């Protein structure tokens, strides 16, 4: 199904993500279920303390891939409305780096579609995070190096 552009919102932003606006954007009388997923900055990773994360992106390609993923998700599941926003820049613990909101007629599809979208985003969209550890060191996170 081709999703009309008024039913999709894809954004890369250096401002805090307003998750509630996204939830409201995807809520429609045609849907019976809404899901909002937030990736948030976790303070502890394997016993080490993160004071902040810096997110860098290749903006043109990140947006192209985010749009591609949204289209694929809408082809696989009966998504009514969908929003995908990724933040860049300096984030403190508990702040949201990524938000996915979407609605479907039935609940099972919202879980499946939401999970597909975040899983694929994490391998396909050119965005990277740099850890700022509490000992003052920094480190780019790259999956093969983890």
């Amino acid at each position, binding site marked *: 199904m081709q999703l009309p552009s008024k039913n999709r919102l894809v954004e890369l932003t250096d401002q805090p993500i307003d998750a509630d606006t996204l939830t409201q954007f995807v809520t429609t009388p045609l849907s019976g279920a809404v899901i909002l997923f937030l990736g948030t900055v976790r303070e502890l990773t394997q016993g080490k303390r993160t004071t902040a994360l810096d997110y860098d992106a*290749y903006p043109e390609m990140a947006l192209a891939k985010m749009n591609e993923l949204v289209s694929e998700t809408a082809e696989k599941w009966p998504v009514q409305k969908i929003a995908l926003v*990724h933040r860049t820049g300096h984030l403190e613990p508990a702040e949201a780096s990524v938000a996915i909101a979407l609605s479907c007629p039935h609940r099972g599809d919202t879980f499946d579609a939401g999970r597909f979208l975040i899983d694929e985003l994490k391998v396909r*969209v050119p965005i*990277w995070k740099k850890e700022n550890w509490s000992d003052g060191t920094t480190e780019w996170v*790259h*999956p*093969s*190096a983890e």
Partner: protein
Amino acid sequence: MKTAVITVNVRKTEHMKITVKLFARASQLARASEVEVEVDGGASVADFRKALEAQHPKLKPIAGSLFVAIDSEYSSDDQVILETAQIACFPPVSGG
């Protein structure tokens, strides 16, 4: 347009100077957000990788894991690089 492209590919002796965007650890290691790489006309992505590593040895520690994107698409090693393409190199992504 296609004819023009083929002409470029055939004249392999002509060199192309490609501006390459770097991100994350690639940018950190090269100490630059962009580098220039010289390749022969008609070079493939595999050729480009060799040239990048030779001309920018600082990238060696991660050369094997770098992705090469052409015009915002992931590339394959046998793809031919056009002079007009936007090229970017970066390590595995870690967003979300």
